């Protein structure tokens, strides 16, 4: 049937197009439902495939997304030894710690490329090469990195790489996991032969095509977009620091992706500021939200040694393609005023 062929062609083509965006071959692209599935498939798939071979350790960082930390925790429940690398106070993986922890018992390491809360860039190509030396598989959660950092599977030695569609303007509910050719991996689900049996289930063709298009557009605009975001963020940070000189911008001394700013103002709390900002039409976020939507201090900030009072004051502002100079002006005007008010209330108590 022509319709069936058309759908098949669209899916094949989407796979090729996403592959090209990552420097990968089409058979190395596995479509997923998003970042969480990619992260879980890589960690648990690799751990389960390799545990019989005596490699029983999983290495990760404490600043990973919960999808990684949860999957690693599940591997630990299944008998894995869990090793967590040390971080520098700038929010970057301590290379010496990584070097010490990755030995010949390690099945898979997972280090995110760009941290989603503070934006710090991790030395992924270097860490991936180190893991390869030790015979361990290497996964990177590149959900925040795609379109911000050059990714090329031909030059960089990661074995798995996760991206998510909704971070780059594709529909929600689609993502991809790069799986280097020849890498063994246990599927999470069992059933049909879709995606070479790595991901059974009817493919979401329309979303896969959306992911391919979004990925291409993101890369086409990458350079201009990053320059624009960096300029806006520098304005934002300078504007805030000019009016709130004791504001602490986390990860500021490290190399950061241009679209994330995480700031704590002593004497405030993120919950109140977030509400006040939201009511003024400014969407920011706090630490990690639980199921109910209430906020707890961020595990990322705790992991890099941020004081608890600053961690519970942290606000994350993300910049995207819709962010304009006007938005930045508004935040620079509103945020310091809210800070002043919050401090007044704290002082009065």
């Amino acid at each position, binding site marked *: 049937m022509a319709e069936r062929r058309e759908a098949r062609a669209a899916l094949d083509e989407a796979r090729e197009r996403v592959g090209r965006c990552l420097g990968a071959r089409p058979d190395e692209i596995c479509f997923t439902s998003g970042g969480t599935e990619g992260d879980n498939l890589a960690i648990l798939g690799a751990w389960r495939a390799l545990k019989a071979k005596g490699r029983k350790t999983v290495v990760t960082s404490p600043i990973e997304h919960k999808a990684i930390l949860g999957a690693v925790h599940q591997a630990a429940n299944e008998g894995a030894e869990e090793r967590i690398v040390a971080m520098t106070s700038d929010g970057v993986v301590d290379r010496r710690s990584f070097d010490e922890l990755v030995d010949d018992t390690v099945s898979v390491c997972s280090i995110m490329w760009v941290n989603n809360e503070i934006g710090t860039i991790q030395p992924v190509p270097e860490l991936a090469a180190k893991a390869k030396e030790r015979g361990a598989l290497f996964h990177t959660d590149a959900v925040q990195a795609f379109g911000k950092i050059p990714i090329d599977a031909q030059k960089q030695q990661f074995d798995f790489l996760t991206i998510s569609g909704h971070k780059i303007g594709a529909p929600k509910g689609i993502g991809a996991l790069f799986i280097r050719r020849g890498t063994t991996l246990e599927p999470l689900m069992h059933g049909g032969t879709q995606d070479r049996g790595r991901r059974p289930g009817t493919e979401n063709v329309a979303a896969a095509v959306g992911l391919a298009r979004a990925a291409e557009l993101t890369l086409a605009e990458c350079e201009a977009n990053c320059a624009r975001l960096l300029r806006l963020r520098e304005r934002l940070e300078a504007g805030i620091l000019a009016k709130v000189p004791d504001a602490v911008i986390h990860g500021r001394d490290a190399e950061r992706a241009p679209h994330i700013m995480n700031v704590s103002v002593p004497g405030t709390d993120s919950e109140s500021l977030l509400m*006040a900002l939201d009511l003024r039409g400014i969407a920011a976020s706090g630490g990690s939200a639980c199921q*109910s939507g209430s906020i707890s201090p961020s595990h990322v900030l705790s992991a890099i040694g941020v004081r608890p009072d600053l961690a519970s004051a942290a606000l994350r502002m993300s910049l995207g393609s819709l962010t304009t100079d006007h938005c930045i002006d508004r935040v620079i005007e509103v945020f310091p005023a809210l800070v002043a008010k919050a401090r007044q209330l704290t002082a009065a108590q």
Partner: protein
Amino acid sequence: MSGGVDSSVAAALLVEQGYDVVGATMKLFCHGDDVPDRPCCSLDSVNDARRVCEQLGIPHYVLNLETKFGHDVVDNFVEEYARGRTPIPCVRCNTFTKFRDFLKKADSIDAQWIATGHYARVVDGELRRGVDENKDQTYFLWGIDRSVLSRMILPVGTLDKAQTRARAHSMGLEVIAEKPESQEICFVPDGDYTRILEQRLPSDAPALSRGPIVTSSGKIVGEHNGFARYTIGQRRGVPGGFPHPMYVIGIRPTDRAVVIGTRDELMGSGVVAREVNWLTATPSVGHRVSVRVRHRAPLASAEIVRLDSDEIELALDEPVSAITPGQSMVLYDGDRVLGGGFIEASRGQRVALPVLAA
């Protein structure tokens, strides 16, 4: 907004009256695993509150007050039972969590008023009982700071429960209109408060250790498995074989004794309360008041016979049953709430029980 019918209708009425309303749900505790069928404070309740706000077209926030609530309410709850008293956490939640900590959140968004779904009214800066005598919640509200009254709006205080449900239906809030009442303590997952005590007290805590059941004359008539499992007036767990029904009439942590007695022995003719808080001008000794010593207990007439800075003693016109240390004593003049305190001791009981050191 708890996701229940009262706070939902309260919000809806304010929207109807033209207020600029912001919905908020307090997250007060975390059981780890969610308890699905609880009418209050579960994840489902947060979802219901959010759905109501979406329907009303107002923002909704979930505020994490877990740490403070844990300290001010849950820790105190455990300490009180450990001291042989019967705590009343809803009073402390209103005093410290809702009308103090939560109010600060209101300050931070410049909200002039704070509204809840309590069945009570604020009239001319004074707290009054709700119109629905059956649902009146002033027993739990006496401890709030007097200055807060001027910022409180209690929209369902003028309704009875049936009217509230009817309003929920007429305003299309079907999600929550027929939700069951939450009667139990919100942070006690299955109604069994002793589980919380077992989790939080050391396993050899006196309050959870075996002790004697004695009569008022000191005769040992049985053994219990921890005095924290008992409250004044309780009959369950009291040995049988007496000519009259027997009740718990006292708890003595010093020798872990649970004291039992007859219905007569349960009666007290006076009451001493501490941590007194006034919501009106402080009355003076000799002042006649109505008093309630237990939620839903009938009002009793009494006279203030002693009034120190933090302690008050009342003489009751007629003896009252089961005056229980740790519960609230709330004073009224008609339907005006004068103030209240935490019951320290019953006076004039036939058996003199030692007053606990604070």
